[in-house]
């Protein structure tokens, strides 16, 4: 008798949940990234940009499907793959159909696998994984699947852009590669060696080195080696304190050539480099803000600053992610059937307000977009970072970077 009561209660409950999901007003987007711990500032900044993009681009324009709003919900994964899977389950149970994540390719690898499994087993509650920043090339190659879409250029595409810029620079004949001693640092080093080897016979790699991650007190000995190697340019995938420490030390010890980086902006780094990094620090990335932002971009940025005065829009792809998702939902005519939404996303060409087109390549779900080489400077900066007068400015653009780049992806498509 007791058991029957229990079963009755459970089925009644599930009916209620099912019903509330069916009548839910908002389209829920789960943001699974670190919101506490050492990377909390990165995660929180990303969440703010997502909330703002959803509000500004969708909700204030009347929503999608004739009045349905986007709702971004933050889930703290403490940057742990294990915790991320728990949060994914929580999100799915809350009726979320769209997952966004970006910090750490380790987490992204775990999530994409879990999403693939979940979607196979639960055709009624399938979800899409929109990856806005995890750049491990494997995610759109060997480990690709139909449910994963990457809106950021992967590490190889970015290195392709960096090495293009180096080869085009006649002053550079010697390059020094240095990075943190872990998978991403090694991937950057491999890619640098591969692309420079393919593109040029004259450019020599005079140093290729890894240092312990997060443990180096003083980068002076490393920068001495870089200077005395006679390098004209440096490539590094460093981030956080390692990026700032390395960059500052190289500059202070007399290096004047360009330092090509992935992550040397925002989160206090731009302000801390200040005058010293001017003309030396270069970044690769998407989305042009400086110089001469268009009226649309200015409005967007100013509205963001009104909400988050200390924030930076350092990931313009977040706006693309929201914009493309909204467009795909409109095209599919539904937000519940994620297969239809995914098919609408495949091959979509999206005009971004930050200039150019973003193409979601159908065969591997890798976004192909204009990549820029940025320079750290205080000239022509309409929107600086970190409340300083410094920001990053586009100095070189590669249109539709890597549009014909090869992929090993062979995904199974749901019929």
């Amino acid at each position, binding site marked *: 008798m007791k058991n029957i009561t229990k079963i009755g209660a459970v089925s009644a409950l599930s009916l209620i949940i099912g019903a509330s999901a069916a009548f839910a007003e908002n389209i829920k987007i789960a943001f699974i990234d670190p919101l506490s711990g*050492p990377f*909390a*500032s990165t995660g929180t900044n990303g969440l703010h940009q997502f909330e703002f993009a959803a509000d500004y681009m969708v909700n204030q324009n009347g929503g999608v499907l004739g009045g349905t709003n986007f709702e971004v919900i933050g889930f703290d994964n403490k940057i742990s793959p294990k915790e991320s899977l728990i949060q994914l389950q929580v999100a799915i149970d809350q009726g979320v159909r769209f997952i966004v994540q970006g910090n750490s390719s380790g987490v992204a690898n775990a999530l994409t696998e879990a999403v693939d499994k979940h979607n196979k087993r639960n055709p009624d509650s399938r979800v899409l994984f929109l990856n806005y920043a995890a750049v491990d090339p494997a995610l759109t190659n060997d480990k690709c699947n139909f449910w994963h879409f990457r809106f950021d250029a992967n590490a190889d595409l970015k290195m392709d852009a960096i090495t293009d810029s180096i080869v085009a620079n006649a002053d550079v004949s010697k390059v020094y590669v240095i990075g943190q*001693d872990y998978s991403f640092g090694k991937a950057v080093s491999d890619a640098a060696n591969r692309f420079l080897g393919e593109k040029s016979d004259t450019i020599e790699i005079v140093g290729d*080195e890894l*240092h*312990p991650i*997060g*443990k*180096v*007190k*003083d980068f*002076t*000995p*490393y920068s*001495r*080696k870089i*200077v*005395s190697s006679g390098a004209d340019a440096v490539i590094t995938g460093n981030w956080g*304190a390692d990026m*700032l*420490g390395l960059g*500052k*030390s190289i500059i*202070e*010890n*007399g290096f004047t050539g360009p330092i090509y980086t992935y992550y040397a902006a925002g*989160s*206090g*780094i731009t*302000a*801390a480099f*200040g*005058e*010293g990094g001017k003309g030396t620090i270069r970044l690769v990335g998407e989305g042009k803000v400086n110089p001469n932002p268009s009226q649309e971009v200015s409005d967007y940025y100013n509205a963001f600053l009104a909400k988050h005065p200390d924030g930076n829009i350092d990931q313009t792809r977040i706006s693309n992610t929201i914009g493309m998702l909204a467009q795909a939902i409109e095209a599919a005519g539904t937000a519940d059937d994620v297969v239809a939404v995914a098919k609408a996303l495949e091959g979509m060409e999206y005009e971004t307000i930050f200039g150019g087109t973003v193409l979601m390549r159908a065969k591997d779900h890798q976004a192909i977009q204009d990549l820029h080489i940025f320079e750290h400077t205080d000239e022509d900066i309409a929107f600086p970072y*970190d409340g*300083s007068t410094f920001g990053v400015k586009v100095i070189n653009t590669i249109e539709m970077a890597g549009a014909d780049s090869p992929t090993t992806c062979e995904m199974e498509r749901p019929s």
Partner: protein
Amino acid sequence: MELILVNLIDGLVTGLLLFMLSAGLTLIFSMMGVLNFAHASFYMLGAYFGYQISLALGFWGALLVAPVIVGIAGAGVERYGLRRVHQYGHVPELIFTFGLALLIEELVQFIWGKNQMPFNGPEVLNFTAFAIAGNSIPAYKIFMIFISISIFMGLLYILTKTRVGMIIQAALSYPRTVEALGHNVPLIFMGVFGVGTALAGVAGVIAGPVLGTFPGMAFVLGSIVFVTIVIGGLGSLWGALVASLLIGWITTFAKSYNVEMEAVLNGIGIATPDDLSENLFRDFWALTSPQIADILPYILMVLILIFRPQGLFGKRQS
């Protein structure tokens, strides 16, 4: 050849910075018998206070004011924290300083956030003092050397030539006798703790612009400071100086030259195995000196503990 000179200067800067931290720590340890785990946290506080004050008073104002505030905070910790815990023995004191280190780190994150702080050195020193074979030595580094050496001289003078210094030295070894002679030993303890933490504060202010001002800065430097005072000998100012310089130079040289383990082993007469890829020790053979540079001080510490447990300049045999 020129690079050796450059590395000597770099190692000197690293070593002297380490000395400013270890000098205070070694005095505090020899006096209270407690390893102050929070010592590096006071160094961090120095950098953050320095940054905040430099916004209002400029770098030089910060260099004067921030260490004083850190010193007062340190004295307060001794007076109202450690002294109360002292009666329960050494372990509670140890745990107290450990908790304090965690607390300070959280507090710093709470007030200043987790981002890097844009703390920069003074404009006046923003030039290249001289260059050796293309390696420029920033004027700021010369300034760091100058400050550290003056602090060492000052400390040495106070400890060995003045009356205050003699009382402190006496209180180090015979606190009860000194107390019986009418000196206020708890006050001396508080003073030494305050001065020790103030030194860490100075180190924080001058290192902040070079090594970065961020919540992890105490953690990065914390353990190496303990290694320094163990190698140097507890309670010895000269020991702290020699050990700091030794560590500074060892790590700098190890990182600057790519000495491979294979070359070292071949040098002492061990031939490279034919098939390295199948060898059990292949990772060991592939090691290079920059990879192990940061653990060399720890290896040195183990050797010192085995062959000279009192440290290079230590007096105590316990």
